[in-house]
């Protein structure tokens, strides 16, 4: 009782201090900020070393590929990304606030969605397939610019309904195993699941180089693998459900530094 009262007081105090964006959804995080652990802390020291040393990190192959694509003119407009944006480093910090609500489109956009939108609108180019190598490379390039910056998404205002959808999906039991995300990643993180330690399921390093995949992959690919893991039918990559979930996950990881390209098992 006392602790609940204290929590309620903390919410009120937070609102009074103008921390409204964090609390607007009326949800407190299941994991306290001081207990937040990046997925990096759940992999072996060797894998951590592989991620930290950018000369060794295989994800950098995609970042370098992305830099080439960045400067290549594409589509009918004959424009490159660089023609509008200049150096990729000018997009520093962008990945930290994605996904965002786009008022003109009236929907949520993640980095992949923003790149696709740019391609269609500005470059007049054909869309790239969601998990295609060029889209992964460009996404990795943009996200890599924010490496080290804390995740910080807006979940208030027009983004709130999407946030609520994501939160509901995160807590909904799914599939033949009848499991929700929260049961593993909030209630059981740190415990063992066969040979592995359960992570907190933060999305702060995507696209990631996953050793199991032997390649770089998107967050949506990883989420689809989670759905399959609990024997549920996964939504398609880029589907609204996964975007909403991505927003909720970004809010959960608020403050964790971006690690793109992260290396995971």
């Amino acid at each position: 009782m006392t602790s609940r009262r204290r929590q309620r007081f903390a919410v009120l105090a937070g609102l009074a201090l103008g921390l409204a964006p964090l609390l607007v959804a009326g949800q407190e995080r299941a994991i306290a900020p001081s207990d937040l652990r990046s997925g990096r802390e759940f992999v072996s020291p060797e894998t951590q070393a592989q991620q930290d040393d950018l000369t060794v990190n295989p994800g950098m192959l995609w970042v370098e590929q992305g830099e080439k694509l960045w400067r290549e003119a594409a589509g009918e407009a004959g424009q490159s990304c660089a023609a509008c944006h200049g150096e990729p480093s000018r997009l520093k910090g962008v990945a930290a606030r994605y996904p965002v609500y786009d008022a003109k489109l009236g929907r949520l956009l993640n980095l992949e969605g923003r790149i696709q939108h740019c391609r269609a609108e500005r470059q007049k180019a054909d869309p790239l397939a969601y998990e295609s190598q060029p889209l992964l490379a460009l996404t990795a390039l943009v996200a890599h610019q924010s490496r080290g910056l804390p995740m910080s998404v807006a979940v208030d205002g027009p983004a709130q309904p999407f946030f609520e959808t994501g939160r509901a999906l995160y807590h909904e039991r799914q599939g033949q195993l009848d499991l929700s995300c929260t049961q593993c990643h909030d209630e059981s993180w740190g415990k063992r699941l066969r040979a592995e330690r359960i992570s907190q399921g933060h999305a702060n390093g995507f696209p990631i180089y996953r050793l199991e995949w032997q390649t770089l992959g998107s967050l949506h690919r990883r989420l689809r693998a989670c759905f399959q893991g609990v024997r549920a039918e996964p939504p398609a990559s880029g589907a609204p459900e996964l975007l909403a979930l991505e927003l909720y996950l970004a809010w959960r990881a608020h403050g964790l530094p971006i690690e793109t390209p992260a290396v995971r098992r």
Partner: protein
Amino acid sequence: MPATRIVAPAKARKGEVIEIKTLINHPQETGFRRDNVGRAIPRDIITRFTCTYAGEEVFRMDLFTGVAANPFVAFTTIATETGDLVFEWTDQHGTVTREQARIVVT
């Protein structure tokens, strides 16, 4: 041509032990896997990696199906003279990917 990354010192003192790191983008498909309709995925691997330093071979490695995708190879050699480090990856079809880096030895 597959993307590569080479990390080698641009300068070194004579007699110094230098570390060279290399990475190449390659699927290293084993030939043992099947696709989602049951067809065998053909083997596609790099079989040999070599490094020459000022024309002399200083490192050679044979690769097999047990080597993971995007092979990372790190090795050391001794800085002897100013020259080119030439890296060659040869795949099973005989296609060679070549990269080089200059090292100045003082």
